[in-house]
C-alpha cells in the first residue's frame, strides 16, 4: 500500500511541473500587462504616465526580463520563500489575499460536500431499490433538472424566492450588521442562514450526478449473484441491502471524495460571483478582469494542484477500499 502511494506521488511530480509552466503561460497570455493597464488608468485619472515611468515600473516588478527567467523567479519564490507574488489589485501579498478568503471558502465547500453525499446516497439507494416507482421518477426528474439548469441562474431564482417569501434575498454570507462583528452565536446562525442557498446551488449538480451514479451502481449490484447467494443463506432483505449492494456501490462513490472537493471549489466560482459571496470565486474573477496576474495565476495553480491532489487521494482511497488492490500490496 505504501509502495503504491509512493509510486502515485512520484508520478504526480512531472504533472505538477507542467501545470506550473502552463499556468505561467496563461498568466502571460492577456495582451498588455499590469503596467500598461495601470498607466491607462492613471492617464484617465488625469495623471500623465510616461514611457520612462512605465519602464521603471516594469523593471521594478521584474517584468522586463525574458519570459523563462520570469518563470524561474516565480517558481523559486514560491518554493523557497512561500512567496506567490504580489497582488496589485489588493496591494498586498497574494498569500495574504488567499488566506483572507480561505476560511470561508473551505467552510462553504465542506458543508456543500457533506450536503451532496448525505442527500445523494440515500436517494440513490432508494431510487434503485424502488426502480420505476413514482419516487424514482420524481428524483430522477429532479436530478435531471438540477443538471440542466445553470448554477448561477438557480442562484438568482432561489434568491428571488427567498426575497418574495422572507423579504430577504440573503445575499452574501453575512447580514450587514455581522460582517465586521466578532464571532458570536448570532453571527454563526446568520452565516448558517446565508449558506442555505449557496450550498444548494453549488451542490446541486454534484448531487444530481451522484444520485445518478449511485442509482446506476446500485442497480448493477442488486442484480449480482452474490445478492442471490445472500438471500439463499437466509439473510433479511434489509441486511442484504446494506451489507452487499450498498457496500459495493459505495466504492466508486467514496473514491470521488478527493475529486469532489476540488470540483466544488471550482464549481462555486460563478455562483459566488452572482451571490456576492466573500470567497475565492469573485476574487479570482476580478483578478482575471483586472489582470492581476500573480493572484489569478496562484489561484489557477492552486486549483490545478488541488485537482492533482484530489485525484491522488481518490486513487489511494480506491485502492485501499478494493480488496483486490489492497491484498496485492499486502505481500503474501
Amino acid at each position, binding site marked *: 500500500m505504501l509502495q503504491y502511494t509512493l509510486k502515485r506521488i512520484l508520478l504526480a511530480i*512531472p*504533472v505538477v511541473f*507542467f*501545470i506550473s509552466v*502552463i499556468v505561467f503561460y*496563461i498568466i502571460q*497570455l*492577456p*495582451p498588455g500587462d499590469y503596467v500598461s493597464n495601470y498607466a491607462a488608468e492613471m492617464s484617465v485619472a488625469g495623471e500623465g504616465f510616461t514611457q520612462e515611468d512605465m519602464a521603471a515600473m516594469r523593471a521594478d516588478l521584474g517584468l522586463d526580463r525574458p519570459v523563462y527567467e520570469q518563470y524561474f523567479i516565480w517558481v523559486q519564490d514560491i518554493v523557497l520563500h512561500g512567496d506567490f507574488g504580489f497582488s496589485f489589485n489588493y496591494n498586498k501579498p497574494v498569500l495574504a489575499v488567499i488566506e483572507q478568503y480561505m476560511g470561508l471558502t473551505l467552510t462553504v465547500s465542506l458543508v456543500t460536500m457533506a450536503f451532496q453525499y448525505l442527500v445523494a446516497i440515500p436517494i440513490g439507494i432508494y431510487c434503485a431499490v424502488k426502480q420505476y416507482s413514482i419516487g424514482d421518477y420524481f428524483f430522477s426528474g429532479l436530478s*435531471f*433538472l438540477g*443538471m*440542466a*439548469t*445553470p*448554477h*448561477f*441562474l438557480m442562484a*438568482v*431564482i432561489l*434568491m*428571488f424566492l427567498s*426575497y*418574495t417569501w422572507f423579504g430577504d*434575498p440573503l445575499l452574501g454570507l453575512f447580514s450587514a450588521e455581522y460582517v465586521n462583528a466578532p464571532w458570536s452565536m448570532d453571527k454563526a446562525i446568520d452565516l448558517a442562514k446565508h449558506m442555505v442557498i449557496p450550498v444548494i446551488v453549488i451542490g446541486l449538480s454534484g448531487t444530481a450526478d451522484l444520485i445518478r451514479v449511485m442509482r446506476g451502481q446500485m442497480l448493477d449490484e442488486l442484480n449480482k449473484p452474490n445478492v442471490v447467494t445472500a438471500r439463499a443463506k437466509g439473510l433479511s432483505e434489509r441486511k442484504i441491502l446494506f451489507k452487499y449492494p450498498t457496500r459495493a456501490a459505495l466504492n466508486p462513490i467514496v473514491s470521488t471524495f478527493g475529486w469532489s472537493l*476540488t*470540483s466544488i*471549489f*471550482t*464549481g462555486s*466560482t*460563478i455562483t459566488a*460571483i*452572482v451571490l456576492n459571496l466573500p470567497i475565492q470565486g469573485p476574487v*479570482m*474573477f476580478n483578478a*482575471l*478582469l483586472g*489582470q492581476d496576474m500573480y493572484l*489569478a495565476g496562484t*489561484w*489557477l495553480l492552486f*486549483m*490545478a494542484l*488541488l*485537482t*492533482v491532489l484530489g*485525484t491522488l487521494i481518490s486513487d489511494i482511497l480506491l485502492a485501499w477500499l478494493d480488496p483486490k488492490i489492497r491484498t496485492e500490496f499486502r505481500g503474501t
Partner: protein
Amino acid sequence: MMRPFGRRQSAAAEPAIDKDLNYSSQWRLMYVRFKKHKLARVSLVVLALLYASALFAQFLAPYGLENYDSKYVNAPPMKLRFVDAEGKFHIRPFVYGLKSGRDPETMRKMFTSDTDKKYPLQIFVKGEKYKFLGLIPSSTHLIGVEEPGRLFLLGTDSLGRDLFSRILLGSQVSLSIPLVGVGISFVLGLIIGGASGYFGGWLDAVIQRVIEIIRSFPTLPLWMALSAAIPPRIPVVRMYFYIVIIFAFIEWTGLARVVRGKFISLKNEDYVVAAKIAGVSDSKIIVKHLLPGFISYLVVATTLAIPGMILAETAMSFLGLGIRSPATSWGVLLQEAQKIDNIALYPWKIIPLGTVILTVLTFNFLGDGLRDAADPYKR
C-alpha cells in the same frame, strides 16, 4: 395473438452473406432500439426544430439584432388576441399597442395595453434587410405587425430590444458553439486517442501524460482564464472562433480517452488479430475493423458532451467572458436576469433560461437514448 412461433428465430441465426449487409444491420439494429426510447425520439424532434429555427432565425425573427427602440424599454410580453375589448371575435390574431405611463405609487415607468390601437398579425412582412442563410439578401420576415405597431411576443430588454427576436438570433450562437466545439474535439479525440490506443508504446505514454496534465486543470477556471485572455475589441467572428477553440481544447481529452480505451480493448479481439496476421494494413484494419466497433460509443460520448458545453458557454457569456455585444447568445440575454429586482419587475427576462434548460435536457435524453441503442447488452 396466436403466432406460429417457429418463425420467431433471431436474425443472428441467419447466415451472414456479406460484410456490407452485416455492417448496415448493426445500424439498423441501433435504429430499431433507438426508436423504442420514446423520450429520446421526442428529444430528437425538439432538437431538430430548435436547430431549424436557428438556421432560419433571421427570417423567423420580427426584428434584427441592431433594432432597438428607447420608447419601449422593458416592455412586457404582448398577448396575441382573438377577442377584442368589445368582445368581438377576429379570425386574424392581433396585438394591442402599448401605452406607457407611470405607476402612481412607485412612479416607475410601466406599460398598459392601448385598446384603441389594434395591430393584426401579418405574415411575410417587409422589414429590416438581412441575408437569408447568410447568402440571399432579403427583407421578408415571417411575422410582424404594421408600423408604427410593434410586436414583442416575449417583451423587451432594458434597451427596448425584442426578446423573442433576440432569443432566436442568440440561438444561432448558443446552439452552434457546442456543436462546432464538440465537432473539433471529436476529430482531435479520434485522431489523437486512436493513435495513442493503436500504436501504444512511447507515443501512448506521451499522449496520456499530456491528457492527464490538461485534465488536471479544473475546467471552469481554465475556461475563465483563457476567455479573459481574449482581447476585448475583436470582430465577432474571431471571438466566436476563439471561444470554440477554447472549449474544444479542453473537451477533446475526454473523447480521446474513450477512443483509446476502445481501441485497446478492440485491438486484442480475435478478429483484429486475425486480420493483422493475414497481413492487412494498419489503416485498413482501423477503418474496416476498429472504427465500426466503437463509432457508436463515440457518437454517444460526443452527444453527452454537448450539454456541458452549452452550460459553459451560457456561463461564460453571462459573466461577460464569452460572446460579447454586438453578438448575442442566451448567456448574454440572461445577463439582464442577474439582478433580482430585474426578475421581480420584469420576470420575462428569465425566459432564455427555459430555452437553455430545454436544449440541455433534450441533448441529455438524446444521449441516453443513443447509449441504450448503442449497447446491445443493456437491459
